[in-house]
Each structure stands twice: as structure tokens, then as C-alpha cells.
């Protein structure tokens, strides 16, 4: 019980209650021994209970554990990290991939618009997104949700994303929703560790190696644009897109957040986002908001556009419009 070597008040009182000492002290020694045994057993049981944690070092190397935030990495840090990620992908998925880091183009501000008169809900955008962005195949997902809405209402409560029939249906229109790349993104404010931020071209990105997986951003997003990796990613080797960006479509680790990044590994190199390229109806318009000649600016100039949930003040760079 105790190793206190200072005399206790009782012990120092001598004979008055000294007769208690043998009774109290003897069992105390035995009790201390029993406690020590109990503590040892408890610790051993605890070690056994948390033993599944030993799988962490198998998947998380020391380099990964100690890796700094993206914005603090030097070019040589990046080279080393990208090489490590490439070899880890090779090891885990058996595929040679290239991880690049295209930076925002100076003076460019990306905007996106969807013509709701043209979209017919065929879902080609979702499929292209899933392939382009190396989505985990376990659950059928992409960064886009297509809402089937009832004509006569813009209320999403009357919409559904789980329709499974031929499109378009009579009396319905279709509204794809993905990250709105808000000017004032609530997800970025929410993140406790700055693992997500807005880049100079307006794209909100995630450092998948810095995110702690608290999912506060997912609660904060009004557009359901963020997704969590609930389990280790599974993608057939022949379906992996080897052209990968560090902040975009590389295979995301378990336990972290992900979101639409306007295919920055394509768009920052002058190509169109995968969803736009795949759209058979021509409903999607993408471009540089700072370029007066761009398609997106033509839409903003000539169509009456609206944004989702304008009242929240998030100021999306994503617009919707109807023909005529």
C-alpha cells in the first residue's frame, strides 16, 4: 500500500494504539503485492486488447507519420514524398503511377456552370468522375450526386439521388451537385488542422496526409460535397488512373476526407474536367472567370444563373441556369 517512510501519526503515538499495527501492516504488505499482480495483469490485458493497433506501423511508415503539412514542404521534400507514395502504390496495388503537383495558373479563377435544361440525368459525369479520381470501388461513389427533381419546384426535399430507371422521366429535371468551390468555404473554416484550404484559382483542396479524419468539414458543408474514406480503398489494378495529383486524384488513405477538386491535375494543364468531357448532353460549362472571353463568362453574361443555397453566404463558384 505504501512506501511512506515518515512515521505515521498513529505509529508515533506508541502504545496507545500500537496493538493495531501488526493487524494493519501485515495485510497491507500482502495487499500491495496483490495490487502489483492486479496492475500487471491489467496492463497485460490492455496490451492484448489494443493489439490490433499494431497494424498501424504496417501501413504508416515513419516518414509518413512525421510528414509535414503540404504548405511547409520544400520541392525536395515533395520529390521524396511523391516517390514514396508512388512506390507504396506499386507495392499495394501493383500499378506504376506518377504523382504530380500542378500549381494554380497565375491569374486564373475557375468557375463551373450546368445547364439544367440540357442535363438529362444520364449519370455519365458520375461514372467518369469515379474512374478519373480513383474512387474506392467498394461503395459506388463519385464526387457528384445527381438529383432527380420534380418540375414545378426547386425544393431538394422533392428530389432524390437514388433513382434507378431510364432517364429522362416525364415531369422531372436533373440537377448534378458537386463541390461548389465556395468563395467562402465553411469546410475550410471548420478544419481544426488546416488540412483543407482554398488555392489561388479558387479550388478547395485537401492534404490527405495531414487530415485527421474528424469529419467536422463534412458536417459544415451545405452541399454534401465531402466524403470520408470509411475503409481501406479497393480499386482493381487495371482501373487505376496512373496520372495522379498529390492534392487531387491520388488514391486516398483510409480515415481521411476527400472532395471534388475540379480535376486540378487536368484543368491546371489546360484540359477539361473529366465530368465535362464525359457529359453527352453538353450541359456542362467550365472555364476561367477572370478571362472575359471564356465560355463560363459567356454563360454568366447571357444566362440568368443561380447558385445553390445563396442565403448561406458561401458564394459558390458553381452556377446553374436554364435555356431560354
Amino acid at each position, binding site marked *: *500500500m*505504501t512506501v*511512506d517512510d*515518515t*512515521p*505515521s*501519526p*498513529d505509529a*508515533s*503515538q506508541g502504545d*496507545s494504539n500500537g496493538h493495531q*499495527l501488526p493487524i*494493519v501492516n501485515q495485510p497491507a504488505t500482502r*495487499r*500491495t503485492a496483490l*495490487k502489483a499482480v492486479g496492475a500487471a495483469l491489467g496492463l497485460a*490485458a*490492455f496490451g492484448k*486488447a*489494443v493489439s*490490433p493497433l499494431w497494424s*498501424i506501423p504496417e501501413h504508416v511508415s515513419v516518414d509518413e*507519420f512525421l510528414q509535414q*503539412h503540404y504548405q511547409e514542404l520544400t520541392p525536395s521534400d515533395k520529390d521524396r514524398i511523391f516517390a514514396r507514395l508512388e512506390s507504396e502504390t506499386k507495392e499495394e496495388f501493383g500499378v506504376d503511377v506518377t504523382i504530380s503537383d500542378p500549381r494554380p495558373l497565375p491569374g486564373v479563377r475557375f468557375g463551373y456552370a450546368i445547364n439544367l435544361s440540357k442535363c438529362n440525368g444520364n449519370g455519365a459525369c458520375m461514372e467518369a468522375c469515379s474512374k478519373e479520381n480513383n474512387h474506392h470501388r467498394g461503395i459506388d461513389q463519385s464526387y457528384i450526386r445527381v438529383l432527380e427533381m420534380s418540375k414545378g419546384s426547386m*425544393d431538394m*426535399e422533392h*428530389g432524390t*439521388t437514388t433513382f434507378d430507371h431510364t432517364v429522362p422521366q416525364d415531369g422531372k429535371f436533373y440537377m448534378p*451537385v458537386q463541390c461548389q468551390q465556395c468563395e467562402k468555404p*465553411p469546410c475550410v*473554416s*471548420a*478544419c*481544426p*488542422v*488546416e488540412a483543407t484550404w482554398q488555392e489561388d484559382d479558387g479550388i478547395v483542396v485537401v492534404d490527405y496526409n*495531414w*487530415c*485527421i*479524419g*474528424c*469529419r*467536422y468539414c*463534412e*458536417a*459544415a*458543408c451545405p*452541399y*454534401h460535397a*465531402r466524403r*470520408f*474514406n*470509411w*475503409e*481501406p480503398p479497393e480499386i482493381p489494378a487495371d482501373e487505376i488512373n496512373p496520372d495522379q495529383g498529390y492534392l487531387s486524384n491520388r488514391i486516398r488513405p*483510409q*480515415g*481521411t476526407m476527400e472532395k471534388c477538386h475540379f480535376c486540378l491535375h487536368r484543368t491546371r494543364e489546360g484540359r477539361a474536367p473529366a465530368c465535362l468531357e464525359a457529359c453527352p448532353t453538353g450541359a456542362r460549362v467550365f472555364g476561367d472567370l477572370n478571362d472575359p472571353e471564356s465560355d463560363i463568362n459567356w454563360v454568366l453574361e447571357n444566362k440568368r444563373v443561380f447558385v445553390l443555397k445563396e442565403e*448561406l*453566404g458561401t458564394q459558390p463558384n458553381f452556377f446553374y441556369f436554364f435555356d431560354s
Partner: protein
Amino acid sequence: MTMPSSADAHHPQTTTNDPLRSYPKFLWWGLGESTNGGLGFYVWMIVLTAISLVGANAWANQVAQGMIVTNMTDHVSWGLYIANFTFCVGLAAGGVMMVIPAYLYDDEEMHRVVIVGEAVAIAAIVMATLSVVVDLGRPDRFWHLVPIIGRVNWPVSMLTWDVIVLNGYLIINLHIVGYLLYMRYLGRKPNPSWYVPFVFLSIVWAISIHTVTAFLYCGLGGRPFWNTALLAPRFLASAFVSGPAFIILVMRILRITTGRETAPGPARTLIQIIRVAMTINLVMLASELFTLFYTGSSHGASAEYLYFGSHGHTGLVPWIWTAVVCNLVGTGLFFMPEALERGTIRIAACVLCIVGIWIEKGMGLIIPGFIPSTLHEIVEYSPSLVEWKVTAGIWAFGFLLLTVLLKLIVAVFTGEESRAKPQPP
């Protein structure tokens, strides 16, 4: 559980002025004292340890296999863990309702037992922190949250505020409790300048932890169910019910297990506080519900789902009506004159209000924030077995910690009294 006999309390007769030597000695002595007890005590501790281990094992499996083992989804991305977190923060803040009468109103009787409230606060903060840790997808990156070595999004992110205020509250209370017990152990009179400023700081701080926790939710414009200015006041009001009710139960258990006679005053004061706080809580709840249902806008969709079900989905309806019944009956019992006396009615009232508030600000607040989702989809949620195991483990660990703290407190107080008593001739 037996009390340590007076001969068991090994206090140094003379005070040593070297805290570097005597403080570790105090801790070691405290560890010994707080793990002494009878058969009932050891059964209690072993059962709690076993449940904690089950929880630890469930969490380790969750880390290894991914959070897919929970029933959370991208639609309902927070569940039982965050619900329980919210309640535990309230429990911790509620302890301040002993500190205020004791220190601001100089209630002598309350002053003698206020340390029980501080012990409850310490255990509750630890439970709250654990509830957040188990909710992280990447606990291995926890260091990213630590100032200086990590990268903290302060002051913008409400979650960083929460981390700061929760840890601050834990440290303040550990200091107050640790200092007071240490001084009593040494047989010295505590120096007020070493702890009273921290006590007053803890009063403000207690209110801040629950306010910041409410801001975590009500600051999100995309979640209309949470986005109400009433959330923080409601959190505080319900915390000032659940905290004192929990403390009343703890004091009752202490009285039975230790056989120590305590004055009836503090519990009565707490019940008067509960009466007021619960009434305010219910008035605010009614006001909230009126706005949600009478306007009938989309803001009411979550409330409709919660109370009556929506489009055939009724997962939370049994939960919330259980809470409504518990809260109303519990409040009714608290207002009976018998609640001021020691007896079954008081105990029943405390238990009912604790259960009611656990649901109301846990499952009844966090889950409907996600249903319907921001795109108005309805995906339901009920916790998985893993989530229940982990949560039970956290509670068991909290009780384990609380038991050890209370044993230590009782040992110090008993030792002090035995020295204060005149020696037999």
C-alpha cells in the same frame, strides 16, 4: 467498500518543505489509498476494468479496419461518439454549480463538498476527450492538433477552441483538486492565492467549455437544426441539470459506501438549482419547437423526423419521446417537496433527468442535424455494436477514474480528521 481506518492513514506529522520529494510521495500514498477497499470495491473496479478493456479492444479494431465498423455514413457522419461527447462536456460544466455557491456565495457546507464536483468534472472531461479521440479517422495524426508541432486553425475553427478550452479546464481542475488534497495531506492550510484565482477562472471556464461546444454545432449554416442562437443557452441550462443531478447521485453513493455523515444542505441547494435550470431548459425547448413546427419551413424537417418520423423513417422517434417523458417526469419529481429530502423520489428524479438529457443533447441533437442531409436525403443511423462497446468503455474508464479520485479525497479528508481529533487519554 470499507473506509481506511485511521491507522491506515500515513500522514507525515511534520510538513516537509520540499515539494519535489513530498509531492511524488503524496501521489504514491494516494495511489495506495485509492486502491484500498473491501470486496465490493474490488468487484466494482474489476468490472469497470473489464468493460474498459472491451471498449479499448473495440476501438483498436476500429482503427485497424477503418470506421466502416461503425454505422456512421457520409450522410450521418457523426454518431454516438459525438453525442456522448456533448453530454460529457455538459457533465463537466455542471460541476460549476457547486463551485458558484461555495465560492461566490460562501456557502460553508457546499465548500466542504465542492471537491466532489471538481472530481466529477475531471472524470467527465477525460470522457469527453476520449469520445473525440475515438471519433478520429486517423488517431495516429493526433499530433497535428497540438500547437507548435502541429498546425492549428486557430481562431477560425471552433474545434480548435474546443480542444483548447477542454484541456484548459482539465488542467485547472487537476491543479485545484491536486493542490487542495496535497495541502490537506501535508496538514497545511491551503494558501488561497494558490488556488482561489483558479477557482474563479474555472467558473468562467466551465461556462466557456459548453458554450464553445454549442458553437461547434450552431456555427454551421448548412445544418438548420443546429443553426440556432438558442443552442448554447440550452446546452448550459441542461448541463446545470445533468451535472448537479449526477453529483447528487455520487454524494449519495459516497455517503452509503463510506458511512460518513454529510450535511443535507448542499444537495438541497443543488436541487433548487436544478429546478430553475430545468424549467429554463424546458421553456427554451418549447420555444425552439414552436418556431420549428409553427413556421413549417424546411428548418423544421429535422425536428419533424426526430419527433414524428419523416417519409416512413422513424428511427429516432422512440429515443426522443423517451427523453421527453424522462425530462417531464423527472422535472415533476424535482418539484415535489420530497425531492428536498433524502429518498427514492430524489434519486428517481436525478436518474430520469440524466437519461433524458443524455438523449436530448446526444442522440436527439447530433443525429437529426444530419437527417435529412444537406441535399435532403434521408439516411438513418443507429449505433453499431462497436460504437456501443467503445462508448461503454469510455464510461467505465470515467467511472474508474472517478472512483480513484473519490477514494483519494475520502482518504485525505479522513486522515485530516483523525489528526484533528483530540487523542484519547
